[in-house]
């Protein structure tokens, strides 16, 4: 009996209280069977959406915007509230976010991260995107569709986002996870808008591109193995970044929404912002 209690206690500590009304990643089959119970939001370009989309899906644009000299930022609260309300989403809606295909996985998680950050708890992404839906022979609709507007109020969850000040304060304490491509991390290449080659000293490398294979999300156990191999701990605070705040949401999504880690923040300013900080000196040609 004591052993059972101990196991439960350990489980409670390592797998934090985590109740979702919808899986973090859903399949086309699941979505087809549950279409009437969810709000499907389509992030693709408008002409692609109009040409064909999942029946009932609404187009949702503008969940990430350029501002303050950063490429991908969260819109202002009132603007974001309006976008979410107009998509027919309430705080208690079950939402499935759809992108083009697996190559856009980080973009779909960026949108999904924005929704949960704004206070929508039950958000999923469609595995394989619209391509998986059509490949599975599911029905499609054309033109525009709208849902009744809700009265959504944004309640940002500060536990999901890291500010520059938090990153600077956490450089030595937090696990920094760099989700960019390997050669970017190593210092062979960089985006023009990032000021330094290489990576933040001590940052772990775990490219977001590895989450998917052939356009589909790898099995959860395989993703867990990758994380375990780096000896990352769910107990220690973690800050995930990339170049401009998109790729990092892919691993943020898997770690927090699929695996249940609770101490993980996504840094949407990412290397674009922190590489301009004179006190932060990137290192290159080293692994970690």
């Amino acid at each position, binding site marked *: 009996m004591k052993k059972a209690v101990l196991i439960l206690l350990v489980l409670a500590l390592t797998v934090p209280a985590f109740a979702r009304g919808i899986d973090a990643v859903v399949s086309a089959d699941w979505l087809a069977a549950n279409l009437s119970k969810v709000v499907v939001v389509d992030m693709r370009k*408008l*002409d692609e959406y109009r040409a064909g989309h999942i029946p009932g899906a609404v*187009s949702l*644009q*503008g969940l990430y915007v*350029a501002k303050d000299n950063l490429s991908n930022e969260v819109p202002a609260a009132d603007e974001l509230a309006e976008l979410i309300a107009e998509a027919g989403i309430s705080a208690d809606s079950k939402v499935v976010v759809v992108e083009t295909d697996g190559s856009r996985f980080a973009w779909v998680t960026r949108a999904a991260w924005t929704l949960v950050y704004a206070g929508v708890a039950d958000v999923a992404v469609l595995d394989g995107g619209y391509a998986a839906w059509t490949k599975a022979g599911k029905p499609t609709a054309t033109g525009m569709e*709208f849902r009744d507007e809700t009265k959504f109020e944004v309640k940002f969850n500060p536990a999901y986002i890291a500010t520059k000040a938090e990153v600077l304060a956490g450089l030595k304490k937090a696990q920094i996870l760099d989700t960019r491509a390997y050669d970017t991390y190593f210092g062979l290449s960089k985006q023009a808008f990032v000021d330094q080659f290489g990576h933040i000293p001590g940052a772990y490398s775990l490219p977001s591109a590895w989450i998917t294979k052939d356009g589909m999300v790898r099995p959860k156990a395989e993703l867990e193995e990758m994380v375990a191999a780096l000896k990352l701990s769910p107990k220690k605070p973690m800050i995930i970044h990339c170049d401009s705040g998109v790729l990092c949401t892919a691993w943020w999504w898997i770690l927090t929404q699929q695996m249940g880690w609770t101490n993980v923040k996504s840094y949407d300013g990412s290397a674009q912002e922190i590489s301009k900080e004179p006190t932060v000196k990137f290192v290159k040609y080293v692994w970690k």
Partner: protein
Amino acid sequence: MGFVVSKDLIARDPHLQNECTSCHKGNAAAKDQKAAHAGLIDRPSDDPEAACGTCHPEIAKNYTLSLHYTAAGMKHGVSGRFSEAEKKTFDAKVFEQSCRSCHASCGDCHVKSPVVSGVNLGLMNGHQFARKDESKTCALCHGGRVYPEFTGEYGGTPDVHYRKGMTCADCHPAEQFHGDGKAYPDRTKVAVKPSCVTCHPLEYLGKDSTKQTHETHDGRVSCSACHTASSYRQCSSCHLGEGARSSPAIVLGKNPRNLKELTTLRLIPTVRDTFQKAGIAQANFDALPNYWNTVPHNIAKRTDRTRDCNTCHQEGLYYLEAKMLPPGSSKKNLDLIP
């Protein structure tokens, strides 16, 4: 790889139920390519009335007078800088060879993507005729700034109209593209053109406080001056001088066509030696400014200007200033500084 035409396509597109030769000419009975292509017309709708006009006479006739076909806006945009002699030189040496080479045929919007700087994407969907397909047509000629600003592909906020499911033809309907049968010198003179207040009459806009704000600014400040969401591409970002880098900005100044109005301005890249190779010195270069009123296509309900009056009234954040003017630019620009 699909065929240009197929039995299926022929069955569903009435245009293709005519012989190919009905538009493209040539000789369908010939046995070898050379003979078959004798007299072939590559782009039949370069002559709208002769090609499309056989079935759509009114549209084709009107279209030959529309700005997309005549490219008159390009001519009249610069002709004010020329002497009478220079205008003749411009017409002979520049306009037909350069400006008008951009004119859109019917097929450039309804069959294939238009040619931009000698490059095009070819047929949009085999030889199927499309009523409209803006991302493959409008987006190419207007892709340097307007379309990517509209969709947010430049990284800015997508235009509120795009977010609501609207694309180009929802504000610029076919009747406006095809023209009304009158030849206009430029788009500002066209009789029926898009206007914000057609759909958003001021008296019905927003809360009481918003109504008051709109009343106060009506006639003095354009809609876009406050409702442009984010920085937009200036032509000079790419075209002014060597090594120019893209540097989007919001620029507010007096409307050169109505100095009583504050509006969004865009810097047009005509410099003093633009037409030097054609022997045009632009005798009246300073008669026209380099900044022109523009409506950036990234409209938003809320911006830093609608949120905080101080953005303009205290900080004057986006106002055109003398120090911003490019060296050697038109003296007329000074008139536009608020």
